[in-house]
């Protein structure tokens, strides 16, 4: 298996992206290994009473020159809350790189990336790294309202951006699975990639399966270790119970028992 690391990083930036999402960038002292879209890090939450385990977050950006890893952290509970309060200059311990990446698209593929909530992180990472032309890549982002969306305009150079909001305050009204790029054009894509809440993943998988389109989703099962030893994060698949942390978090929907 691939070499993995535990190391203290120094937080170089922690900025709010909106009311509940923060961009945290941390620098390592040592040279970073290759980290691919879909992979994640397991983060120790400092000084937090009654938080025992690490918390997993997808990698959002890697800068091999600066030796930094960035992630987008959404406040969900106590651990993520505490993490978003970390200040630049503080140490933060990461276990990395964890999990398997998305299957890279072929050079001629047309792809649809769908992100929900903080699930945008690996989607943007993939858009940037895919090596495809902007014309080949659509990104569909879903959130409850305009305010819940993260500003990703800078990614318009890598992809065509589409938005769905439940209240219609940005882009089309409704869930991502109701959005026109998803409803009308599904078969024009060679590959669909998605990351977001469980419900969204299942909804996407259902339609993609029916349409028989290649589709990979990233799962967020509860984890204790993050590197394949505890067997807590399992997902039932055609090959039995697989570990989301090592066999995933990215799965082809055809493997899943959904």
């Amino acid at each position, binding site marked *: *298996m*691939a*070499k*993995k*690391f*535990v190391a203290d990083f120094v937080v170089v930036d922690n900025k709010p992206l909106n009311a509940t999402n923060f961009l945290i960038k941390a620098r390592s002292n040592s040279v970073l290994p290759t980290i691919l879209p879909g992979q994640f890090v397991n983060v*120790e939450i400092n000084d937090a009473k*009654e*938080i*025992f*385990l*690490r918390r997993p977050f997808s990698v959002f950006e890697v800068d091999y020159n600066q030796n930094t890893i960035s992630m987008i952290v959404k406040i969900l509970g106590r651990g993520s809350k505490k993490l978003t309060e970390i200040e630049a200059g503080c140490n933060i*311990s990461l*276990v990395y790189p964890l999990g398997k990446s998305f299957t890279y698209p072929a050079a001629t593929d047309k792809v649809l990336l769908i992100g929900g909530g903080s699930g945008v992180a690996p989607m943007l990472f993939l858009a940037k790294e895919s090596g495809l032309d902007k014309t080949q890549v659509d990104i569909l982002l879903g959130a409850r309202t305009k305010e819940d969306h993260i500003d990703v305009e800078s990614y318009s150079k890598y992809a065509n951006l589409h938005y769905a909001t439940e209240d219609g305050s940005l882009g089309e009204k409704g869930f991502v699975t109701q959005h026109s790029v998803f409803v009308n054009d599904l078969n024009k894509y060679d590959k669909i990639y998605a990351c977001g809440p469980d419900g969204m993943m299942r909804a996407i998988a259902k339609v993609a399966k029916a349409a028989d389109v290649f589709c990979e989703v990233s799962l967020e*099962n*509860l*984890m*204790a*270790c*993050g*590197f*394949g*030893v*505890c*067997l*807590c*994060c*399992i*997902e*039932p698949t055609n090959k*039995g*119970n697989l570990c989301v942390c*090592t066999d995933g978090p990215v799965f082809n929907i055809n493997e899943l028992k959904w």
Partner: protein
Amino acid sequence: MVDLKVKVHNLEFKNPITLASGTCGFAREMADFFDPAIVGGFFLKGSTLKNRDGNEYPRMAETPSGMLNAVGLQNKGIDYFIENIYPEIKDYDTQLIINVNGSTVEDYIALTEKVNELDKIRGIELNISCPNVKEGGMAFGVSCPGAEMVTREVRKVYDKTLIVKLSPNVTDISEIARAVEGQGADAVSLVNTFLGMAIDAETRKPKLSTITGGLSGPAIKPIALRMVWQVANAVKIPVVGMGGIMNAADAIEFMLAGASVVQIGTAVFKDPTLPVQIINELEDYMLRHKVQSVNDLIGELQI
């Protein structure tokens, strides 16, 4: 230099810091983080005769200074291990002990017989204390007759080092320890997890698919340490101690209480390189306290 070597029956450990079963996979997963030859040994993930899918998701819940798990011995069965995993790990320069589980005594025997053929597995840890399986598991480990029976039958077919892993979910753990000692166990290891439970007050549902699960981590350390101390005072065979060890001081406390070897369990989820750090800190401690050999720490609680 200090001498870290310690023996448990016939098993020589280069140092007393080993990894607990179910929290270090089949050792290869840890090899992604450090050279397996550094640590004293690995107690491999619990194996059963046949493939087991384990329990349904969710299988874990965080608790104050600990966690509950309800894995339920998911593993691909001993044949898969022998064919696919053993060849990959057998040349690690460290002790590999296999953790053996059955629903019936026959299971335990059949499993042991297969394990007996494996040259590089010089000992088994007989798990009669898993709280997460419906049949067998802890049921054997919480009564003297049950513990005795499994130990006796396995002993008949196994000549290498037999370590029996005890359940803490009992009124008197020394009694069980003495019982398995009486049936020929070469050592006992303790503790397995405590049966616990977590509820989500908002959804009013249990947090684990199995309702109850096994509690591990620092939360249980005081109880585990007490049990190791009681058992070490009750039996003549060596004791392998574990339960919430997070640092060298914890490991030393278990040795002072009477453990010859300790296992690091849940702590590796927080930091997979911890066993290596603990070995270094143990050496520092011994130098600082002028302790020549780890054997001079074992059972040396001053009372």
